[in-house]
């Protein structure tokens, strides 16, 4: 029962990956062409993703059996409602890549552009694959594509410190990947299968046990590291702050979400099998989420570097998502899932706007950037909208998730966390208001800042577009719900107490 678009499912993964393999060859004469090539490939990918989503909306979740092998014997691709995330993901890439065309001028020489864009394409393809695969080992391999390209993308912009931040990211990321592989192997040993649905069924037969629990814990820790939850977030701030801004937007907005999507997949397996009582684990998630919110905000307050500030706020926002997942009530999980997308959008806005400002002025600290809004009004306005949005104030996209998760907290009778969520967000606003004050209401201290010009349109267009989307989705908050609600309602009947 699949329509014509279902055939596109493997190609939506293969296209960016093959595009990446071709990038050096395509750009051999004109390295700058790599950027246009990558954009074209992502555009087609986005069209395919849109087709898949339309298929999903028309007929519900569907599978693709690679090589024609029945699900458990080959690799199964599964496009369910959570997979719909690939469409916004591809679209965000389509917006971010044009921004990087001119932005890279000050980051790297032309000859390194082809591998850079190849890495971006690999990153996109890896994430798309991660979202649609229905096979545990395949999930691991895609994780590695994403991680490996992310490590490298962190380091492309600078030398010593960038390489160091990337290496730190690599070590921690590699250990987390290993934990994931270990957990996969354990489940394989227990069930004899790697297909998620099959594993879930077989786990129900095998029943619980320490090994099942340890596998779950290994997955959880692994994905928490990927998502940069509070105690294991140490790799994130340096890596995200030091990377070139388009890369920061990708990493902060989307790559950390690999951890969240992964967690959702593991939930699907375990809840489907009903072998573990996850109430205690959910409670731990709620606490970790709350602590992440506060600690992320707390660290961010002391930052002067705008990108470092944004990087810390990612930790806070992941805290929201995890808090929502842990609360395990329908509204909370819906809010968390919606925030996966909204945060990507907001963070992309913020990082691209910050990148524009850095690109035009050459400064990156608040104290240097005073008064920049007069010189760059549109970019600063985008930054302001992003800042308001990330704090979750209406009428912006950030509010939607805060509303849902708060609703979920009270629905789950966890009122203290509802309060913590609402007021924790205000705590975060302290540092954004500092930023906005500096940009708008203080006198410039550098001539370069006062005389900076607006960015070229290839950079301003994406920023303005993303900022407008932040506002529009604040009002039309119901749109992401179309995809998220069925997925959550599928998942939740199996959910803990």
């Amino acid at each position, binding site marked *: 029962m699949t329509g014509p678009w279902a055939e596109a499912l*493997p190609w939506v993964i*293969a296209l960016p*990956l*093959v595009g*990446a*393999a071709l990038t*050096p*060859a395509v750009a051999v004469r004109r*390295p700058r062409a790599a950027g246009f090539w990558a954009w074209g490939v992502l555009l087609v990918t986005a069209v395919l993703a849109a087709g898949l989503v339309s298929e999903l909306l028309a007929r519900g979740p569907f599978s693709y059996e690679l*090589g*024609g092998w029945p699900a*458990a*014997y*080959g*690799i199964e691709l599964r496009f369910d409602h959570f997979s719909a995330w690939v469409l916004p993901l591809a679209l965000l890439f389509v917006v971010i890549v044009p921004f990087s065309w001119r932005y890279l001028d*000050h*980051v*790297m*020489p032309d*000859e*390194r552009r082809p*591998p850079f864009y*190849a890495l971006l394409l*690999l990153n996109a*393809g890896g994430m798309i694959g991660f979202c649609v695969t229905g*096979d545990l*080992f*395949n999930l691991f*391999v895609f994780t*590695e*594509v994403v991680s490996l*390209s992310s490590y*490298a993308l962190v380091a*492309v912009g*600078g*030398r*010593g410190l*960038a390489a160091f931040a990337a290496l730190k990211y690599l070590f921690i990321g590699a250990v987390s990947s290993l934990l994931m592989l270990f957990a996969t192997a*354990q489940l394989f040993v*227990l*069930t*004899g*299968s790697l297909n998620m649905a099959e594993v879930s069924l077989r786990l129900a037969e095998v029943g619980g046990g*320490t*090994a099942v629990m*340890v596998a779950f*814990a290994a997955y959880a820790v692994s994905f928490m590291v990927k998502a940069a939850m509070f105690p294991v977030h140490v790799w994130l701030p340096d890596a995200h702050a*030091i990377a*070139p801004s388009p890369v920061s937007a990708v990493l902060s907005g989307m790559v950390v979400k690999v951890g969240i999507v992964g967690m959702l997949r593991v939930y699907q397996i375990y809840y489907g099998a009903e072998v573990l009582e996850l109430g205690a684990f959910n409670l731990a998630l709620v606490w970790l989420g709350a602590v992440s919110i506060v600690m992320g905000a707390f660290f961010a307050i002391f930052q002067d*570097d705008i990108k470092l500030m944004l990087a810390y706020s990612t930790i806070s926002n992941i805290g929201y998502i995890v808090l929502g997942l842990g609360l395990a009530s329908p509204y909370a999980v819906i809010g968390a899932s919606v925030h996966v997308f909204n945060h990507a959008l907001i963070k992309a806005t913020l990082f691209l706007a910050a990148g524009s400002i*850095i*690109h*035009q*002025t*050459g400064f*990156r600290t608040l104290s240097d950037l005073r008064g920049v809004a007069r010189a760059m009004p549109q970019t600063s306005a985008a930054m302001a909208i992003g800042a308001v949005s990330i704090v979750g104030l209406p009428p912006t996209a950030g509010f939607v998730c805060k509303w849902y998760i708060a609703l979920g907290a009270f629905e789950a009778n966890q009122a203290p966390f509802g309060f913590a969520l609402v007021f924790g967000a205000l705590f975060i606003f302290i540092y954004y208001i500092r930023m906005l004050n500096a940009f708008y209401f203080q006198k410039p201290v*550098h*001539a*370069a800042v006062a*005389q900076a010009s607006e960015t070229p349109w290839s950079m301003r267009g994406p920023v303005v577009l993303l900022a407008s989307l932040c506002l529009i989705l604040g009002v039309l908050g119901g749109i992401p719900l179309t995809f998220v609600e069925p997925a959550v309602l599928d998942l939740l009947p199996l959910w803990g107490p």
Partner: protein
Amino acid sequence: MRPWPLLLVLLVALPLVAGVATLPPHDAPDAPIHTQVGARYLERGVAETGMKNLVTAVLLNYRGFDTFIEVVVIFTALAAVLALPKGSAPVPKGSAPVPKGSAPVPKGSAPVPKGGPQAPEPAAGSAARAARAREEERPEVASDVPVSPVVRFVVRLLAPFIAMFAVAMLFRGHITPGGGFQAAAVFAAVFIALGLALGQARAARLVPVDWRPWLQGVAPLAFALVAWIGWRLTGAFLGYPSDDHTAQEAMGFVLEVAIAVGGGVILARVFLEMET
């Protein structure tokens, strides 16, 4: 010695031991790992895939998509190495502080931050030309330690045989342990040995500059091609026509060769790029 690493290790070790302790015993033939999917592969693998080496059958056919992504991973490693800044710009200890982050070069009238090392290299025309220029400037022997004539002689003597071994692994892979990846590793080993013994420039000539952009991506491209052919023939991405053993073998062969060549080239290039 600081105590916290040990504590961390203990903290990790206990749950892991607890986890593995409750797994089904691994040697038993009735363990799930042998009775589920694995059993079908052993029973019907040869008939379904036409490959006697079932590891290869799993690798290229049943779970061919994994292998596709796997060659993408190794291509990612090359792209990563290529994308990193080249050349050295050492900072002597105790010199001016390096600005945090990749401080960009401002445009126009903006003052240039002090972070000299962060400044970009001048854009060097076409990538290919630049790469070739770099190859030509490369000294005959990259290492500053002179290589002993004995080593050189032995390497030159053995290199063809090792390469032959790699080719054998590639072509006998369907019936003996071996296959594309193993061949790629051995190819790369020959290359690195030659590079160390004879100088990188001579080794680099083995992989012509003009071919590199295509050769390094040949494995993912071959997978995409085979996947497309399979899609046309059987209606499934990366599907092998189950009744046509010739087609199965041809497709598998293309993939193995592409993996060996692509993997070898990538590993060799990673080695070439790792100059200090």
